[in-house]
């Protein structure tokens, strides 16, 4: 009996110790700061230069406190560093100087506005375990579904062909059985032939004449249609060396066209952006969001992350070490919108002076996954727009006087580009 009492006592002790441990650990966490708050602070203040798991401008910060503890740096050192890193470096701290040299002498911005509690929160966030990597989608599944749009169209077409084939076959069968019935009953179906339709047709000269005229007109119509589309590349949609989705960049992210095509503002060509413009963002964006990647694989058959790797290879960016290798490779972009050599077209005149939206000529680029030529780019198309578009005269001293005089001459309030001389041959052909 005594032993049982003892056992109960030891059990109670165990419970108590568990409880104590629990309370202790809870209070420990409370001292550690709030990881959720830390995440917000990290994203607004640190994420420009630090990633949790990847070297960026500064080192990766996952478990930074543990790493620093191994170097013999306590939390006070972290406070000092964040508040004013250059002072720590100047104090002659060996580890600080080593870090400074290792990261190309990029001085970390001072954050005096972060309180010690804020830094505790951030440290709590960095101490969190890394989330398990999401399972990569199987490429095989992606590929089969990739050409989804094309396949469904082809399926419909194929089904239609099969259906018509079956119909024709059924008709032939029906005819055969009917003939057999007729034979069986002793009826003579096909023998009763008067003059054939063909002979009757040939003998009717009027009908022949009309048919010939109709055939000639139809032929001329199609030949004319074919000749008129020679040299017109409307719908031209080449495959580019690096898949660049205007839908994501200009559509979803709302980046202005002129951000990348900056020379459209000031020069003749709209400019194919040089790769350093891509790197303005893709230095930080080294992979797309998992949902975007999934969408690309299933809907468009594109591995967006692989395309970013292609960009890195072309521009010579070593993502692991965050520096340029100097080995670059020009990207052979395929130009889509081509005007013949005998036409002069200037982007800045249209974009900056006239204030024409890019979409007026290039169509809904921001919805195109693969860009295609939207406008025919024929002379008739140019002239039409010049006839219909009013000249933008606001804030344009150059046009004010001539606009006033011409408006009086033509007795209109607003001049169109054509009335301003926009249909003169020499404007574009010289």
């Amino acid at each position, binding site marked *: 009996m005594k032993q049982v009492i003892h056992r109960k006592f030891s059990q109670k002790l165990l419970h108590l110790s568990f409880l104590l441990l629990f309370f202790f650990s809870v209070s420990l966490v409370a001292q550690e700061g709030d990881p959720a708050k830390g995440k917000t602070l990290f*994203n607004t203040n640190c994420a*420009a230069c630090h990633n949790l798991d990847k070297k*960026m401008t500064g080192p990766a910060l996952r478990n930074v406190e543990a790493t620093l503890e191994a170097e013999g740096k306590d939390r006070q050192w972290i406070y000092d560093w964040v508040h004013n890193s250059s002072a720590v470096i100047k104090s002659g701290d060996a580890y600080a100087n080593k870090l400074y040299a290792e990261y190309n002498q990029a001085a970390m911005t001072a954050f005096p506005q972060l309180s010690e509690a804020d830094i505790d929160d951030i440290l709590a966030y960095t101490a969190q375990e890394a989330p398990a990597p999401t399972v990569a989608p199987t490429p095989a599944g992606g590929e089969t579904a990739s050409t989804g749009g094309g396949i469904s169209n082809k399926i419909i077409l194929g089904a239609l062909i099969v259906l018509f084939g079956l119909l024709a076959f059924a008709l032939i069968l029906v005819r055969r059985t009917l003939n057999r019935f007729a034979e069986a009953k002793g009826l003579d179906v096909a023998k009763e032939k008067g003059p054939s339709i063909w002979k009757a047709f040939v003998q009717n000269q009027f009908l022949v004449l009309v048919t010939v005229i109709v055939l000639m007109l139809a032929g001329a119509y199609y030949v004319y249609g074919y000749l008129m589309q020679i*040299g017109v590349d409307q719908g031209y949609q080449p495959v580019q060396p690096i898949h660049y989705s205007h839908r994501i960049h200009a559509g979803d992210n*709302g980046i202005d066209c002129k951000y990348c095509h*900056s020379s459209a503002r000031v020069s003749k060509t709209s400019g194919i952006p040089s790769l350093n413009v891509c790197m303005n*963002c893709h230095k930080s964006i080294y992979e797309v969001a998992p949902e975007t990647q999934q969408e690309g694989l299933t809907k468009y058959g594109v591995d967006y992350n692989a395309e970013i790797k292609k960009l890195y290879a072309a521009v010579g960016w070593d993502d692991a070490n965050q520096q340029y290798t100097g080995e670059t490779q*020009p990207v052979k972009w395929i130009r889509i919108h081509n005007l013949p*050599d005998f036409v002069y077209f200037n982007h800045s005149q249209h974009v900056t002076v006239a204030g024409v939206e890019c979409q007026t000529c290039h169509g809904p680029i921001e919805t195109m996954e693969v860009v295609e030529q939207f406008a025919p780019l024929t002379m008739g198309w140019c002239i039409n727009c010049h006839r219909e578009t009013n000249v933008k005269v606001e804030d344009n001293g150059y046009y004010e006087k001539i606009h006033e005089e011409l408006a009086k001459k033509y007795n209109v309030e607003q001049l169109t580009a054509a009335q301003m001389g926009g249909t003169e041959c020499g404007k574009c052909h010289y």
Partner: protein
Amino acid sequence: MMKSLLKITALLVIVLSVVSCQNKSRPNYQFMPNMYEPVGYETYSESSAFPNGVEALVPAEGSIPRGYTPFDIPNTTDGFNLAKSSLRSPLDSTQVDYDKAKPLFDIYCAICHGTKGDGQGNLVKREKILGVPSYDDAGRAITEGSIYHTIYYGKNAMGSYANQLSETERWQVVAYVLKLKADLEK
């Protein structure tokens, strides 16, 4: 009957082959290509003049284009600090044109820094790029010199905007950034 069937299949094959020749990934036929295709080098065309088939090369190091003022301050931390403390805008108050600077700022900067300069651009809101500071950030304490240096060379994750903005445009944007900073500090 077999004959007509043969004729029909032949017609189908011809029609199908004509239709399948319409390839969207290739440009259409041209009438008299030597009137369409330029003889001289066109922008971005391919040529055999230089390695890799490029049509133009980067100018020789040290060459100065017409109407271009060299920027002496180097792309280092010391250079940044020098610019921050000593570099001044060549534009006086009459030359600063916020109406011209705002569209430029909205195109090139606002996508990350936000139209108000508070670091809440569209890319930040969509969590594509993180950690874009607000212009009134006390630790950075930006000045016109430091803004210009940053636009010219880039800083940390931000790239250089020297090739997208001309020198005057850069200084116009600098003035606009300072205005946004003043508005934020109100």
